[in-house]
């Protein structure tokens, strides 16, 4: 069911409406275990009503509409409505805990300025943020979700059917300046991704998908919402916050809806295995699930095995554990483990891997002190080829670590307003992902990041995200810090470590300074710092171009060679 080159998302939505109007499209699984399916006709009609409201507020074809909403039913309707009228949706993550993430205003201002957004939609209790935004961007229309409660006429929605080279949507990805970058996707790239995913995942007419990942993450937006809406696959959504409060809901949704496919970042599998107790699992049957896809951060072998083992009595088969690698720059999923078989693991000599960049397979299958298990993330979807390249873009042979470069039909057009980063990412015919890995035959093995990105619970952060926060802390030497992530298999994601120089003139107790680092990062960025280390002034070197060497300090930390004045875990 691949698309022809003249189609658009909107044309496919129309075809589905005509072909199967009464088929199940979407349902939201409630915390009490109830849910009500909505047919595609109902979802389309509601989307058109939302679209007419957005249109009456000035949103039209090709305009950018920014949504900062939790991933609930209103958000799904609004997203769909904006697409139906040919606007370009851009989903921004709202704070999970209100009152934290106080740099959100700056991020939103940056996003609205970069995209010249015509409309911004916020939750009703974000009036202060909305008023500030309206003041700084009088040309932008700021709306609140209650605008969708009534009014709007589906019949008056100006439905649009774009060309294949028209833009389709925008997506945020972590940047290197303290602000996110904006990936620009055209229609063709989005459709190519969805076609590739459908083939690689071997999706069929009997599949049902369950998703708890947020719509502002490309896993929720592309791998679930767009894929299901275009391929006719019924989608069961859980609000992310409900999953995080009670992860057994995910399993209940999988069990009770006849689901066959689901997605989660690695941490979600660890989190669920740790949090769900046996007494929660009454009447749970996961035997129909043919694929638990794991993506968006480093995939740990222990996580895959622990999850499968824990829920094996409830039907989870090892062959159902699947792996994937993708990125927003490729719109969505790029490589997939075998839909009909087991994922691949290599146990390689870790010294040769990390010191020489060569993956030499050993004889140990696990646990050897000198070996490390690398989980394969699969093979490229049909139509894509992958090359592992050295720093000069030369191809490397099998088993040699380099940057994963994609020759992909689903490549983004670029980063909006950021030619420098675009020209790094797109060189020749390749999309340079910023990820390190090696290949063995067609299988890709992911080993790390070229850029020094930190991945916490599937969300990516750049070390520069912390600079504006640390610079405000009395006692720290401005600009002299390193931030990095350390893999932690126990929690299935990374731990955040911040190392900073403390001024010679500092008179504050070091414990207070470290408390301040944690508090300021929690307040401004909304995340927890797992470890803080303070070093003497003048001990943190930079590169010859003045850049900080986060990776260098990460290595020193791992080797236990950071001579800290104080540390706090």
């Amino acid at each position, binding site marked *: 069911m691949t698309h022809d080159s003249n189609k658009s998302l909107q044309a496919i939505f129309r075809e589905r409406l005509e072909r199967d109007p009464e088929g199940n499209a979407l349902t939201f699984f409630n915390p009490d275990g109830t849910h009500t399916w909505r047919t595609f006709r109902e979802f389309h009609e509601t989307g058109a009503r939302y679209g007419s409201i957005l249109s009456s507020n000035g949103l039209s074809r090709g305009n950018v509409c920014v949504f900062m909403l*939790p991933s609930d039913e209103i958000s799904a309707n609004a997203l769909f409505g904006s697409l139906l009228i040919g606007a370009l949706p851009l989903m921004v993550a709202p704070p*999970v*805990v*209100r*009152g*934290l993430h106080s740099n959100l205003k700056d991020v939103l201002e940056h996003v609205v300025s970069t995209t010249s957004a015509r409309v911004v939609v916020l*939750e009703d*209790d974000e009036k202060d943020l909305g008023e500030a935004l309206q003041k700084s961007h009088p040309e932008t229309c700021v709306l609140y979700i209650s605008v969708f409660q009534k009014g709007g006429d589906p019949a008056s929605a100006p439905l649009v059917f774009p060309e294949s080279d028209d833009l389709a949507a925008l997506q945020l990805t972590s940047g290197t300046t303290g602000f996110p970058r904006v990936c620009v996707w055209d229609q063709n790239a989005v459709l190519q991704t969805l076609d590739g995913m459908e083939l690689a995942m071997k999706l069929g007419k009997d599949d049902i998908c369950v998703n708890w990942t947020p719509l502002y993450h490309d896993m929720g937006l592309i791998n679930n919402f767009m894929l299901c809406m275009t391929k006719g696959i019924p989608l069961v959504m859980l*609000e992310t*916050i409900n999953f*995080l*409060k*009670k992860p057994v809901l995910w399993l209940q949704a999988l069990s009770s809806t006849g689901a066959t496919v689901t997605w989660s970042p690695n941490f979600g599998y660890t*989190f669920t295995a740790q*949090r769900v107790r046996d007494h929660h699992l009454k009447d749970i049957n996961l035997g129909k699930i043919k694929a638990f896809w794991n993506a968006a951060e480093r995939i740990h072998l222990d996580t895959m095995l622990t999850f499968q083992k824990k829920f094996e009595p409830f039907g989870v088969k090892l062959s159902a554990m699947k792996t994937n690698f993708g990125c927003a720059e490729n719109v969505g999923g790029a490589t997939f483990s075998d839909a009909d078989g087991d994922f691949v693991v290599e146990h390689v000599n870790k010294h040769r891997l990390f010191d020489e960049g060569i993956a030499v397979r050993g004889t140990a299958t696990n646990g050897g002190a000198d070996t490390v298990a690398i989980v394969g993330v699969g093979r490229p979807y049909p139509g894509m080829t992958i090359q592992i390249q050295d720093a000069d873009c030369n191809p490397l042979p099998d088993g040699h670590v380099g940057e994963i470069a994609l020759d992909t039909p689903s490549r983004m057009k670029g980063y909006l307003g950021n030619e420098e980063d675009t020209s790094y990412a797109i060189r020749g015919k390749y999309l340079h992902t910023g990820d390190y890995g090696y290949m063995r035959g067609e299988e890709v093995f992911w080993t790390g990041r070229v850029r020094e990105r930190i991945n916490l*619970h599937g969300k990516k952060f750049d070390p520069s995200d912390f600079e504006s926060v640390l610079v405000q802390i009395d006692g720290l030497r401005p600009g002299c810090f390193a931030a990095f992530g350390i893999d932690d298999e126990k929690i299935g994601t990374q731990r955040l470590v911040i190392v900073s120089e403390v001024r010679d003139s500092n008179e504050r107790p070091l414990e207070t300074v470290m*408390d301040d680092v*944690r*508090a300021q*990062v*929690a*307040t401004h960025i*909304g*995340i*927890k*710092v797992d470890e803080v280390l303070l070093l003497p002034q003048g001990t943190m070197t930079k590169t010859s171009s003045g850049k900080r060497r986060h990776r260098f300090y990460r290595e020193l930390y791992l080797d236990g060679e950071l001579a800290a004045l104080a540390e706090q875990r």
Partner: protein
Amino acid sequence: MESEKIKEAVKEYILKEFLPDEAPENLSFTTALVTTGILDSLATLDLVSFLEETYGIKVAAHEVGVDHMNTIDEIASFVVSKQA
């Protein structure tokens, strides 16, 4: 009285789940939990789930915030207000 019981129960839960190595006397009812990073977003939602199950209350997404949950005192007041 009910409020004091809630405070003790919340303190016990936080110590057990998020601060297993901390001496109980170091966690007071006025210790800032969220703005100091003691509770990150996942831990805060875990605590919300505990409150919902233990006290039979429903906490809306917009109520999960610093205003209601930064100290054990505030959490207890919030729970009591939801029960009223």
